[in-house]
């Protein structure tokens, strides 16, 4: 290596190291913020717990001392109601945000949302059908809530499958056909939900509406464990997709010429997004805008490089959902606002802001 090229190389190396250090610092700040939100979330809601009281209960429990009746109630609210839903919020937030990031990277459009390929529509249509059927024929209710979740999950995957079949061409999957097919499937699902709602009785209608607004109520540890166990391979796959998504950002032809098996990775991204969003939607209903907004925030705070962006989306998605869940319980106690309303209330104005920014000619990060 000659001396004349050594200096700029070292400068670049230092710049890359400095950037990495900066991102690591931002990660640490985000994690601390998440921890603070976790503590705040454990205290807020219709049953307020101060962290000091909760800490005493935990110490007693750890030392295997008997709990007073008050403390038992505290312990119950903590261990059976709040802790599982907060863990669920984190898992679901991370999954939705990472799938949004993958979807935007794949279609090279910062306004893309995981729901674009019909996942949420399919899930909602199937869940609405199941809810209405169970309401009319209670003898069909086998497995209760799990039946609804399973129907939503299957509905989501069927919707994606239809979209993928339609978008398939001889040369592979065309992104533009994929988006158009997604729009059509979403419209079809909307019509189906409309028809079901028209025919359903008041009780079923209320349940359908509540389901489509998303909720973390009724989360149990078994559901959390289920999602947690599945999240491990899903998150690992998303992390594996960091470099392929960087290449997709340069265009499909460019990615192919740089050594990426474009069609294989396109399928992998789509099914992974479909599976993770179907999982989250099946268990918590439709939670909009997390998949759209979090990647934007992460791009602003971190970088467009998916090496940092993907993990940042995971962390920020979890934090946003923790915040939204806390807000949904703390804003109007004892009422609990469906979490989908909270995320949409924050997300929709932000989305409008992004569109306005794009209209002015400014590029979206």
């Amino acid at each position, binding site marked *: *290596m000659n001396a004349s090229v050594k200096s700029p*190389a070292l400068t*670049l190396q230092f710049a890359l190291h400095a950037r990495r250090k900066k991102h690591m610092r931002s990660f640490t700040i985000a994690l601390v913020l998440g921890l603070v939100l976790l503590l705040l979330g454990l205290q807020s809601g219709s049953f307020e717990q101060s962290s000091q009281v909760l800490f005493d209960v935990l110490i007693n429990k750890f030392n295997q001392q008997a709990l007073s009746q008050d403390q038992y109630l505290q312990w119950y609210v903590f261990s059976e109601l709040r802790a599982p839903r907060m863990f669920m919020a984190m898992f679901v937030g991370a999954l939705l945000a990472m799938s949004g990031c993958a979807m935007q990277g794949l279609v090279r459009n910062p306004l893309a949302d995981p729901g674009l390929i019909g996942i949420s529509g399919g899930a909602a249509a199937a869940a609405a059908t199941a809810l209405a059927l169970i309401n009319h024929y209670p003898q069909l209710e086998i497995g209760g809530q799990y039946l609804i979740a399973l129907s939503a999950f299957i509905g989501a995957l069927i919707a994606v499958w239809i979209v993928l079949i339609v978008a398939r061409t001889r040369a592979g999957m065309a992104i533009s056909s994929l988006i158009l097919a997604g729009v059509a499937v979403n419209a079809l699902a909307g019509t189906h939900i409309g028809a079901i709602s028209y025919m359903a009785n008041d009780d079923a209608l209320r349940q359908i509406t509540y389901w489509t607004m998303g909720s973390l109520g009724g989360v149990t540890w078994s559901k959390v464990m289920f999602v947690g166990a599945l999240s491990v391979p899903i998150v690992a796959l998303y992390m594996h997709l960091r470099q392929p998504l960087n290449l997709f950002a340069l*265009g499909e032809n460019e990615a192919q010429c*740089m050594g990426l*098996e474009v069609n294989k990775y396109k399928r992998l991204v789509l099914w992974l997004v479909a599976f993770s969003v179907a999982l989250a939607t099946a268990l918590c209903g439709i939670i909009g805008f997390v998949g759209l907004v979090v990647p934007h925030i992460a791009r602003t705070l971190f*970088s467009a490089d998916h090496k940092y962006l993907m993990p940042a989306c995971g962390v920020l998605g979890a934090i946003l959902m923790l915040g939204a869940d806390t807000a949904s319980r703390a804003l109007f106690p004892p009422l609990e606002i469906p979490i989908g309303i909270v995320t949409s209330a924050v997300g929709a104005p932000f989305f409008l802001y992004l569109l306005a920014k794009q209209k002015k000619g400014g*590029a979206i990060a």
Partner: protein
Amino acid sequence: MLNLLNITLKHGDLTLLEGLNIQLQPGCFTTVIGENGCGKSTLLRCIAGLHGQFSGSVTFNKRTLGDWQTKSLAKVRAFVNQHNQVQFAFLTEEVLQLGRMNQTETLAQRTALICQVAEQLSIGHLFGRDVRTLSGGERQRVFIAKALVQLLPNANAETHGSNAIDASSHGDANGEKPFDGKLLLLDEPTSALDFRFQKALMDVVKSLCQQGLSVMCVSHDINLVLPYASEVILLANGRCLAQGSAADVITAQNLQQCFGVIPKLIPQPDGVPYITH
């Protein structure tokens, strides 16, 4: 190193390429000339492996194109598109780093290679800038640099080390050159470049050809590329009209047949005529 045998590509009733037979030797600079829509870019895309549905065979380094793994092919073949768009706020150095994604090397080795290419194409000052904010010409240089970075030999595996791109190093003691068996496909590489960088790019590419790199370049700037070209292919309606050295191919008759206008050829001392209207 590259053999095209009877390449024909049809799209519906339209024949895009017909019966092309082309051979590329190591270290040769081949330029493809022809009117708009005659199939120049399509030919490059076929060779790059982006068009799967052609008939005939493309053999690259004695292996059929279809037998190459996408990853191993990317180490020896790079393609520079005419239009390059990046959707998100990637920085110049991040784009260049992507060119090395198939290589296992240390960050120090990687940055050294990137900086060498950046210096050659004068894009070092664009480090830290969002690629979307660059001018068309700057972005074109960044993408050409990325393609060169992609083809540079790995400092660990090969002896040529980090000075492979220096014009002074034309091979090692065994006579093996750092870019032997490597192919660079350029689609209108100078379309957005200014007067200075058009020539600078051609000089860099020519120096790489002397180190074994084979180049196939599609260009409308005939007078710029001809002095550098060791071989010229004249395409018309997807067919090869003439193929050979610039002096043989560039005749008034061939050009008239290709472009449908009668050009003026001004003889030059190097034997390659200057073409004007």
